[in-house]
C-alpha cells in the first residue's frame, strides 16, 4: 500500500529525513517511536503533502501511485489520512460545514453523489457515537477552544467520517485521559479491516496495548534504525533510547 524508498527531506534548509525506507501493507499496523525531534512528524507531514517540507531524494508510492505527484487534497481523497499532532484551530469554519465539504469532496472524487443534508447528519450522528464525541464540540468552529484531548478526539472523529485506507496517527494518544484513550483506541480498532492500514506515531507503550502493532520502528536522526515486533515497544518502555543511540553510533 505504502512504499517509501530512501526518502530525504528538509525544512528551512535543514535535513530532517535522511534515508527512510518503509513498506506498509494492507491489514497491517505499524508503530513508529523515537526521541523528540527525530523526524516522526516530519515524515507524517511529508506524506500528507505539507509544502513546508522539501523532498530532496527518494520515492514514495501509495497504492502504486507516486505520492509526490499529488497535492495534499488529492492524497486525502486517495485515502491517506493524517491525524495531526497539533490540530490547528480554525475560527469561523463550522465543524458541520467543514466535514460536509470534506466528505462530499471525497465522494465527488470517487464519482459518488453528494450526500443530502439528511444523510450527512445521519452519518455524522453514527460516527459521533463511535468515538463518543460531544455534540457541543461538533456544533462549534473547527477545534476552536477545544481542549488538547478534545482536539485529538476530533481527529479520530474525522477519520471515522472519511474512512481512509491509510491512517497516520501522530501522537493521537498524547493528551487523552484514560477513558478517552480507550474510546479512541476502540474507534481505531473498529475502523480497522484487512483492506486498510494504520501508522501509529507514539511515545508510549500503553497505546500499543489497545492497538496492537505488527511492527515497531525506531526513528532516530531521520532514519529508521531498528524495526521489530511489538516486543520492541516494551523494551523501549523499560530501557529508553540510550541503548539504541549507542548501537547506532557504534
Amino acid at each position, binding site marked *: 500500500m505504502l512504499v517509501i524508498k530512501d526518502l530525504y527531506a528538509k525544512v528551512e534548509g535543514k535535513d530532517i529525513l535522511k534515508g527512510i525506507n518503509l513498506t506498509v501493507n494492507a491489514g497491517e499496523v505499524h508503530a513508529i517511536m523515537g526521541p523528540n525531534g527525530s523526524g516522526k512528524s516530519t515524515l507524517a507531514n511529508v506524506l*500528507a*503533502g*505539507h*509544502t*513546508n517540507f522539501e523532498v530532496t531524494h527518494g520515492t514514495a508510492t501509495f497504492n502504486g501511485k507516486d505520492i509526490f505527484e499529488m*497535492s*495534499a*487534497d488529492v*492524497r*486525502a*481523497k486517495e485515502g491517506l*489520512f*493524517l491525524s*495531526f499532532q497539533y*490540530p*490547528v484551530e*480554525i*475560527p*469561523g*469554519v463550522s465543524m458541520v*460545514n*467543514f466535514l460536509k*465539504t*470534506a466528505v462530499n*469532496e*471525497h465522494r465527488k*472524487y470517487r464519482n459518488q453523489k453528494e450526500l443530502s443534508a439528511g444523510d450527512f447528519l445521519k452519518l455524522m450522528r453514527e460516527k459521533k457515537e463511535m468515538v463518543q464525541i460531544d455534540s457541543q464540540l461538533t456544533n462549534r*468552529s*473547527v477545534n476552536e477552544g477545544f481542549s488538547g484531548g478534545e482536539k485529538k478526539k476530533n481527529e479520530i472523529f*474525522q477519520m471515522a467520517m*472519511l474512512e481512509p485506507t491509510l491512517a497516520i496517527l501522530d501522537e493521537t494518544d498524547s493528551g487523552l485521559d484514560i477513558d478517552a484513550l480507550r474510546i479512541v483506541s476502540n474507534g481505531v480498532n473498529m475502523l480497522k479491516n484487512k483492506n486498510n492500514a494504520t501508522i501509529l506515531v507514539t511515545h508510549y507503550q500503553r497505546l500499543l496495548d489497545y492497538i496492537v502493532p505488527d511492527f515497531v520502528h525506531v526513528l532516530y536522526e531521520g532514519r529508521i534504525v531498528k524495526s521489530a515486533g511489538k516486543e520492541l515497544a516494551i523494551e523501549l518502555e523499560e530501557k529508553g533510547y540510550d541503548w539504541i543511540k549507542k548501537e547506532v553510533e557504534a
Partner: protein
Amino acid sequence: MAELLEKISAVDRISNIFVANQTMVGEGLPAWVNQARTPALQAFQKMGIPSFRTENYKYSDLTRLFENENFRRSFKPDLFDVDLAEVFSCDVPEFDTHLILVANGWYDEKSTNSELFPKGVIIKSLRKAMLENADLVEAYYGKLAKSNEDPLTAINTIFAQDGVFIYIPDNVQISKPLQIINILRSEDDLFVTQRNMIIAGKNSQAKIMLCDHTLTSQQFINSNITEVKIGEDAVVDIYSIQNQHNKTASFSGIYVSQDKGSTLSTNAMTLHGGIIRNNLKISLDGEHASANISGLALSDKNQHVDNYTSIEHLKPNCVSNQLYKNILDDSSTGAFTGRIHVSPYATKTAAYQRNNNVLLTDAAKMNTKPQLVIDNDDVKCSHGATVGRINDEALFYLQARGINEKEARLMLMFAFAHEVLAEVKIDKLRDVIDQLVNKRLRGEVSRCHSCALDCIR
C-alpha cells in the same frame, strides 16, 4: 507653436462651477439652505482637495481624481424612460422592504410608492422636507455634518439639492426595513451630490438599508452625506451595501448624534467600487448610549477602500464597539482610521475597536491606524489591529481533509468575513449578504448592474 494654457486648479474649477450655476442649484430652496453654501465654499477653498497633507486623509489622496475630472453635474433630475422600481423589484419574497429610490442624487417620486409607508412616518425628498418640514430639517442641517471640519462635507454642502428625508415620530417602531437604493445612471461621466437626513424620535425603532449601485459604465463621482439624529432610547440600524463599478469614486459621510439610552448599529459592506472613502462620525451626546459599528470590505484589482470612523464619547456610561475587516486581493489598497475621543465628562466609558485585515497578494496594501484621545481615567478602552495572510497551517489542515486549495482558501476567507456578517441583525438580510460575500469572494459578482438583492437569483 501650441499655446500653453495654465491649468486651472481643481479648487478654482469647482468654485467656478458653483458660481456659474448658483441660481440653478439654489432654485426652489429656502434661504437657510442656500446661505449655508457660501461658508461651505470658503471652508472648501481653505482646506482644498483632500490629499496626503490633509488631516484625516493621509491614506486617500484625491488630488488626481479631482484634477482630471470635468464631469457633468446633476443639477437637475435626469429623466429616465424606465420605471426604476420595476428594474429593482426584489424577487426575494421573505425579504420585504419599503423601497425608496434615488437616481443620480434625486429622490425618485415616480418610483417610490409613498402610500405603502407606515402611518405617521415621514419619508420624502429632502428638498420637499426643507420646504414643508423646515423646522425639523433646519434643526440639524449642517449641524451634524460640519463643512468646516471636512472638505468632502464642504463640497457636498456647496452643491446639495436633494436626497432622502426620513422622520420617525416618538414611540413609532417600524419593523419592515426601509431600503434606500441609490442609482447612478448616465450617458456621460457624472458628478452626483446627494444629501439625506434621518430623524428618529424618542423610543422609536427603524432599520435602514442603503444600497449603492451603478447602472451604466460611465465614470462617476458620488458624494453622499447623511445626517442622523437618534432620540432618547431609540434603536436604529443602518446597513449599507456598496456595489458600484470600479470606475466610481464614492464618498459617503454618515454623521450621527445619539441621545440618552439610544442604540445605533451600522454595518458597511463594500463589494465593488473604485475609490471609496466612508466617513462615519458618531457623537454620543447622552448617557448610556451605545454604538456598534462594523464594516467589511472585499477589494481587488486597483480598488481603494478607506474607512474613517470617529466616535465622540461626550457623556458618561456610553459604549462603543467597532469591528472592521478588509480582504485585499491583487493590488488593491485599504485604510482604516479609528478615532475615539473620550471627553473629561465621559466617565465609565467603554470603547472597543478592532481592525483585522488579510492580504492575499504581495501587492495589496493596508494601512491601519487607531487614534485614541482619552481625557478621562475611568474608562475601559481597547484597540487592536492586524494585517496578515491566510493561515497556512489552517489551509493545510483543510487540504489534508480532501478540500482543494481554492475551496480551502475560500472557506478561510469566508470564515474571516463571517464575524462581521454576524453583526447584521436582520436574519434574511444576513443570509443575502452572506451569499453575496460568498459570490464576491469567488469572483462571481463582477460588475453588478442591478440591485444587490437581485444578484443572488
